[in-house]
């Protein structure tokens, strides 16, 4: 694009009138959450704390601190390495600026582990239009990762990641709202896990197979489109349906669908959700390769296997501050508990601890995800 054309586009953008109708900044709120994941020999727990506060009428700041404390003896770990513990610490800072119907947002996220650092810079613009019935959002994020190894201080690999997103939220009727999201993500660099291995047939080994490091392509581009609709039922309850189609250059294709029902009862709100996800495997995934270095790229991460996952969720919330009365500086307050039961069936990834070669069962994962959190609006 010529510079003159770019300037023309920018001038056009800046010359557009600002509507007299106003957009809305997110509510001021604070959340303190404890999360715990248990399943497949892995326990991960920790806190997450979020604080959001407006400054004046057009600025809102948000900060989040998040911690994962990992204790892992997963199927990947016990078959090729030793159980381990580690921490992942993440914090983020963001700002939203409202001008007329336009909200501009910037966000920075930093995630640090002993052997993995990730930084993400995000920018988005949202525009409320057509009498605030429609919200269009354009977003971009750039991420940089540094991958290390805990057993080799000289090991250092990098990769970069870019997200491009377009979102459209539409009020369709007085009872129905829907949102459509497109997201493209591109990765470039060292994308495999430095600790994981693939296995291959090895007649010289007592078990009949041996392991070697996995090797992924150095690029990946994915596209996802998601459609979600939420409907207000006549007796004050809500029903939400969601569908997502996913495809990427590693030849994974996925379909995800969920149905959620929300039912308030006095100060309580109950929620039930069922989520279904089905995917094909990556082109270079094999549970066992025919020989060492059999293909240019090779992986045995179970997440890249063809799989089907089912999640059943139950959640209950209790409003301990009546939103009609408030309490001191607080407008609203709620205590929440949720349990997600996750069941994953892997269609090619086998549990090599379950039998000898040729008799191994397909691996299955059952996990419970607990969340307890308190939210305040002020």
């Amino acid at each position: 694009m010529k510079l003159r054309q770019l300037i023309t586009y920018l001038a056009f953008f800046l010359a557009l009138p600002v509507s007299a109708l106003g957009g809305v900044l997110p509510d001021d709120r604070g959340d303190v959450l404890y999360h715990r994941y248990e399943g497949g020999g892995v326990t991960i727990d920790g806190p997450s704390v979020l604080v959001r506060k407006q400054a004046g009428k057009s600025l809102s700041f948000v900060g989040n601190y998040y911690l994962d404390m990992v204790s892992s003896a997963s199927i990947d770990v016990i078959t090729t390495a030793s159980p381990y513990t580690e921490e992942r610490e993440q914090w983020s800072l963001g700002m939203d600026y409202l001008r007329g119907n336009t909200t501009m947002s910037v966000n920075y996220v930093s995630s640090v582990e002993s052997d993995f650092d990730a930084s993400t810079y995000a920018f988005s613009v949202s525009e409320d239009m057509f009498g605030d019935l429609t919200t269009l959002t354009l977003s971009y994020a750039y991420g940089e990762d540094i991958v290390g190894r805990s057993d080799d201080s000289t090991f250092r690999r990098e990769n970069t990641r870019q997200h491009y997103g377009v979102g459209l939220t539409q009020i369709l009727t007085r009872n129905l709202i829907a949102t459509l999201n497109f997201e493209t993500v591109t990765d470039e660099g060292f994308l495999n896990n430095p600790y994981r291995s693939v296995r291959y047939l090895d007649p010289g080994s007592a078990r009949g197979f041996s392991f070697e490091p996995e090797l992924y392509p150095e690029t990946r581009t994915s596209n996802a489109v998601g459609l979600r609709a939420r409907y207000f039922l006549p007796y004050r309850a809500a029903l939400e349906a969601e569908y997502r189609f996913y495809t990427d250059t590693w030849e994974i294709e996925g379909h995800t669908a969920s149905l959620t029902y929300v039912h308030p009862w006095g100060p309580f709100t109950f929620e039930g959700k069922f989520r279904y996800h089905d995917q094909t495997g990556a082109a270079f995934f094999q549970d066992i390769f025919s020989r060492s270095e059999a293909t240019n790229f090779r992986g045995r991460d179970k997440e890249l296997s063809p799989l089907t996952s089912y999640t059943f969720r139950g959640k209950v919330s209790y409003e301990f501050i009546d939103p009609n009365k408030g309490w001191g500086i607080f407008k609203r307050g709620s205590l929440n508990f949720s349990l997600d039961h996750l069941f994953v069936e892997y269609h090619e990834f086998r549990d090599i601890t379950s039998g000898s070669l040729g008799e191994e069962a397909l691996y299955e994962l059952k996990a419970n995800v607990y969340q307890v959190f308190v939210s305040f609006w002020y």
Partner: protein
Amino acid sequence: MKTKFAKTGRILLALLAFYGLSACSVEPWVKPYERDRLADPIMALDGDPVSTAYIQHVYEAREGARGGEGAAGGGCGCN
């Protein structure tokens, strides 16, 4: 290369034209006073952002798909 830029320019112009339309006086078919049900907290598309971000991270670490449901943070902590 020139064709690619021209295509990008056309997409950008279309988006800007759509943005420009927002300033026109389109009559909303759901009036502001008819949005009380949509304003009910049970209708919030993301009423619990901390909880949503966490559970999306759980899914992204255990499935091959990503995106289209909102962004999760970087890093993994998931082996």
